[in-house]
């Protein structure tokens, strides 16, 4: 991950889910907050997301899923990042993720889950705090 400069974020839509309103709004809000954000578009495989994180020297990977595939796909993304030596990249998630699923996602390496109604300012603040910690 980047050691200095603006925070770099990948916002990604893993799997087949086509609902990208939230992902786009978060991407734009984070840009407005001074971060450099790349939105991957729809239908990304975990491998492609991890590759993008590698190419873009990302500090953060934000995953959006509303289709219920998060249980399988979010941990997969974490694995693909680790395989590429990107285990310290901060992975966060959002979308329709039942509260009951969050512990398993956290176990699998997702740092935080932002459900419906989360203000983008809260997400930005979380990212700033987490990246500061990582960069030391």
């Amino acid at each position, binding site marked *: 991950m980047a050691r200095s400069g603006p925070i770099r974020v990948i916002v990604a839509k893993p799997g*087949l*889910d*086509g609902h990208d309103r939230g992902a786009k709004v978060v991407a734009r809000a984070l840009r407005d907050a001074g971060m450099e954000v790349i939105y991957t*578009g729809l*239908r990304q495989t975990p491998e492609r997301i991890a590759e993008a994180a590698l190419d873009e020297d990302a500090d953060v990977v934000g995953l959006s899923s509303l*289709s219920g*595939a998060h249980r399988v796909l979010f941990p997969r993304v974490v694995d693909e990042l680790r395989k590429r030596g990107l285990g310290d990249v901060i992975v966060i998630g959002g979308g329709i993720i039942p509260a009951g699923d969050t512990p398993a996602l956290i176990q699998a390496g997702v740092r935080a889950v932002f459900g419906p109604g989360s*203000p*983008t300012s809260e997400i930005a603040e979380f990212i700033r705090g987490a990246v500061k910690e990582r960069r030391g």
Partner: protein
Amino acid sequence: MATDGTRAAGERWERDTLGRVLRRFPERQERFETLSGLEAGRLYTPLDLAGPGSGAAEGSPPAGGEAAAPAHDYVRDEGFPGEFPFTRGIQPTMYRGRLWTMRQYAGFGSAAETNRRFKYLLEQGQTGLSVAFDLPTQIGYDSDDPLAEGEVGKVGVAIDTLADMETLFDGIPLAKVSTSMTINAPASILLAMYAVVAEKQGAPLDKLSGTIQNDILKEYVARGTYIFPPEPSMRLVTDLIAYCAESLPVWNSISISGYHIREAGSTAVQEVAFTLANGVAYVQAAKRAGLDVDTFGPRLSFFFNGHIDFLEEVAKFRAARRLWARLMRDRLGAKDPRSWMLRFHTQTAGSSLTAQQPLNNVVRTALEALAAVLGGTQSLHTNSFDEALALPSEDSVRVALRTQQIIGHESGVADSVDPLGGAYLIESLTDRIEAEALRYIDEIDRLGGAVAAIEKGFVQKEIEDSAYRYQRLVEEGRRTVVGVNAFQVEDEKMPPLLEVDPEVGRRQMATLSEVRARRDAKAVTSSLEALREAAVATGTALMPRIVDAVRRYASLGEICHVLRGVFGEYAGAGR
């Protein structure tokens, strides 16, 4: 004239009665706006419908606050239900003749589980079926495709072959029940399966009643379940429309949708504009493919969102009807009055539901459903209160259905046609939405039409900007969402949620293997080859070949694989 007296009285009211109160008690906001950003005026009077030529002083606005539109003519602008321009409804008796169809979108897991939910809903009094398919099915992948992993049966029913379709409608007489299918890129395949199931049931095709969404344009800008690029997709759309015109006379060949455009963040005005612009594009494409507009015109249908800004929604539906009637008759050359009628299904707004304090959503859905009924919808789906969290449970979907039944049978609003017609605010807002939507349609025309506007990213940007604007309003506290940025509660107890069986993917793959083992492999291969040949030869009808392939139990994924090979895949644009 009468208007002069009203204007004088209005000015006096503003100066004295209103002025006195405003000086001591300012209003809650500087400006009140609808969800779409249109001004919500303080008060609407006959002056709002009297037009600039009413003899009133130049430049002095009517009490409603917006600039005056041309003078209203009742017959021209509102008219009578069942007659052009259909502002007040597409039938003269509307719900006095028959209530709207209560049609709950449903589907999850396997065909057998969904079949059970269909039967439950019919038992509880819904009057039409609406099928939700899972994402692999919607995007043309079989349940055993690597890309389907984790997705099978999650947002709808998994359909791989005709065998699943047979299970889905087992014990449900297709000659008697109207079915709507939300499927777009592979719509032809699902309709073919439905027709073959009907045939096997002994139900004549000309009795089959229902709708297939088949609206690819909105997929590119709002929903995301496209497969092929726009040009071959439009061919598939028109091919299906032609097939329906010939073989399924009471089937709606397309459901031109604004619901998803609205869910993606557009305003009500944009919802109407972009939907109707897509409609114009489809009609033009079908005409170019050699169809006469009145052959398919009467069987086009629409699908709108039922959102939370109550008055704006009622006006929106009326504006859409009037605008479409004018477009079909005056611009697209339709002569049959049935081609001028905008018939639509409504779904209450998923995006208005909150994960916080879910029971509040019962209220939201009720208001939204009421607006749709007052707006004259032909068919209605009401969301369940837990849908910001999961798919509906049996209990929550029952409440949603009861909401419609209470509106229809207890509230009285179904007993007169267009009960809010004539309300000064409603007519003024109807006019306003129509005018604003037309401005967008003109802009889209200037860009070269809906397909070009999409390829240029214009529609997507408008939607994204509206979505972002709304988010800013909420985060800055300028728009209240009860339970989210106001009236919050800590430590809520969540209702029991529906869980999709995690084994559904594995079981579906097993079913698919069995079907593949049983079928005549040679017949499948030759039918797929025949389809490929037809796909390559532009201008050849595809539906007959798709029906053949489906009949032999070729899978959805196998058929789409052939089509992908010929048509290519959509890569994304204007992001």
